[in-house]
């Protein structure tokens, strides 16, 4: 069984932990050994959030060593740069095209990197970077909060898990009234990736 090491990052409140729970549940259903861990700190209040997810035939540490993640799913651009050193050189970075400047930037004591700077930083760690307009896609579907299912749909092209198992795990984890739209968001994400996907 092959398996994957996946780092999911973002800002507190964006649904990072929920997304990694969906993926973990799907990996369990697919028969893998799974370990996942969230480092939240006090980030429930808008701080940086990172979730490590590993599935394979056998997993020891829940933490992914730096430089070994197959996939980085970032809900926000600055957070993508903050955690990019976890990627393998040929690992894929799936980065939501969204900037959330921290308050220090708003108050003028720190600066938010330009898109070019961000791309430069990211390409120092991997050559496989995809900027995904996931927030816009989710907003189009009626709820910007569904950015996590859009990104999961996009990322599903890289996982050794049947899309059907992923969608059933997402369904099981959501209340009835949110299921339909989130499955549509998942499909939107898959479609966004369809054109660009190549199996490495």
């Amino acid at each position, binding site marked *: 069984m092959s398996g994957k090491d996946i780092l999911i990052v973002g800002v507190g409140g964006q649904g990072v932990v929920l997304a990694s729970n969906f993926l973990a549940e799907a990996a369990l259903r697919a028969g893998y050994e799974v370990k996942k861990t969230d480092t939240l700190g006090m980030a429930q209040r808008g701080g940086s959030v990172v979730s490590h997810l590993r599935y394979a035939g056998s997993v020891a540490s829940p933490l992914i*060593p730096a430089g070994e993640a197959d996939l980085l799913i970032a809900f926000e651009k600055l957070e993508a740069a903050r955690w990019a*050193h976890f990627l393998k050189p040929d690992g894929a970075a799936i980065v939501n095209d969204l900037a959330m400047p921290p308050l220090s930037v708003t108050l003028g004591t720190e600066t938010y990197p330009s898109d070019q700077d961000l791309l430069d930083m990211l390409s120092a760690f991997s050559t496989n970077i995809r900027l995904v307009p996931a927030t816009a896609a989710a907003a189009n579907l009626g709820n910007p909060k569904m950015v996590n299912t859009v990104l999961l749909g996009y990322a599903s092209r890289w996982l050794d898990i049947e899309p059907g198992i992923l969608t059933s795990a997402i369904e099981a984890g959501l209340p009835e009234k949110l299921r339909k739209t989130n499955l549509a968001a998942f499909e939107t994400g898959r479609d966004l990736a369809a054109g660009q996907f190549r199996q490495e």
Partner: protein
Amino acid sequence: MERLLLSGNEAIALGAAHAGVKIAAAYPGTPSTEIMEAISRIPDIYGEWSSNEAVAVEVATGASYTGVRAMACMKHVGLNVAADAFMAAATTGVRGGLVIVSADDPGIHSSQNEQDSRNYARLGKVPCLEPSDSQEAYDFARAAFQISEEFDTPVLLRPTTRVCHSKSIVAPREKNPIGQNPEFRHDPGKLVMLPGAARMRWAKIIERLRQLSLYAETSGLNKIIVGKTDLGIVANGISYQYAREVFPGASFLKLGISYPLPEKLVRDFAGQVGRPLVIEELDGFIETELRAMGIAVTGKEFLPRTGEFSPDVIRDSAARAGIITGAKSKPAPASGLAKRPPLLCPGCPHAGFFFTLSSMGHRSTLPGKTQRTPKLTVCGDIGCYTLGAYPPLGVIDTCGCMGAGISHAAGMAQAGISEKPLAVIGDSTFMHSGINSLINAVYNQAKICVIILDNGTTAMTGHQGHPGSGVSVKGQSGNRVVIEDLVRGAGVKNVAIIDAFDLKTIRSALRQAMSSESLEVLIIRGECPTLARKKAKPLELSAQKCDDCGACLLIGCSAIMKTGNGKITIDPGACLGENCTLCLQLCARGAISAKEVSS
């Protein structure tokens, strides 16, 4: 076979439930909080949020004395609060199994220090069990109750953040029935610790410890995994999982019971391997014990004594020590990125008070202006409101441990500082141990100003109930202890209750309280918006009237942003609108307003 994906905390709860635990008591504290939350969802088990950890241990001990299985849960610093109750239970022993969970936080993800709870196991001469994943969290919780009854001792279960907050697979086993027919048996020689009885008990405890180490020699909780013999690793808890990843071929002695140690087992293991190496987070606890037995081991001379381990930390340390060679270098993180510290939420009832304090205390400065010398001394405490220490508010001057703020302020006042010190404390912390400090301040006539920020919940850990909220662990409302009545009952003459979203009143009340010659208590009351989830129309910002002065940014509300071109905007998805209106009250140009209601 059923396979569940559970966090370590959920697994501890399920293990306790399947061991037949009858009652559980806790005070919320990261990383332990979810244990009690998971238990509260299991029918037939009594669960409570106790007012503090000492109370939780006492409640659980009392239940154990009636013969049922009981558990108390907390974080490491909570065990300091509960230390006296813990030592008392360690001395009397138990009847029904008594398990005390103390979750350590290596790396200080969400704490004020990173102490190692195992030292309390040694102090109390009680066994310490350390799970390394969720399956073990489940199994060890069950085993802990059985060991407790067999050896007449409370058992310390010590998970760490990385075990508590990791999910892995759990295969549950057969359930024991929940304990019934509680009955207290009179046994003063065991339970009334007057010197005569206590002396007898203490001798028994020393013997108990000897029996426990014999048990540890053969217990299945300690395991030897045979591999190559040039490297033999002694590891506990999550460190074992990291070490297994870094040294896949090595021999391991995995200690599920890290106190007391099985001397013969370790001696045999150490004798069979080339270089026994102890890998443990935080203190060199096992290492010191082994050295005291005369077993030559290495560990802390190259592994860190502070911070959280990871496979990376262990690999780097081992490479430096020459234990592994040819390790490829790891990429370093990008440098110079803007930090993202946690913030008060949009619509937080603490924000307006902190802003007022900040402006009166010269802490807030408009973007581009130089900072003035701070005025006012503000003693803080533990909770969401500690975030008031970050810019732009920057108004917390001390923060030590639960309930310390009021006493810090009293100490400063008694020491004779010229200005009246302020103490800021949340409602849950006030119930936890602030009340003790307030009683002391009343009694000793401390000239301070105490501000209780009452948002009706324990917000920082995820909105648990407490005596002042009157909400039980199952979410049902029960009796509420009214803070102002309590404060008045403690003898405070001047108590004012103020709306958290009314900046003018907050300012005048603070002025008045600061200038008075006596102890003043202000209760600033406003609901935590993340709990209330009240729908509200976001406020609007008029681009014509706004001159982008940035005054509204000083609230520190994350719904107010400055875009790339320097324009201020309000995020309609995040703003709490008429439930808050703080920025509206602040804007001198009247650029912020409530949305017109279209009919």
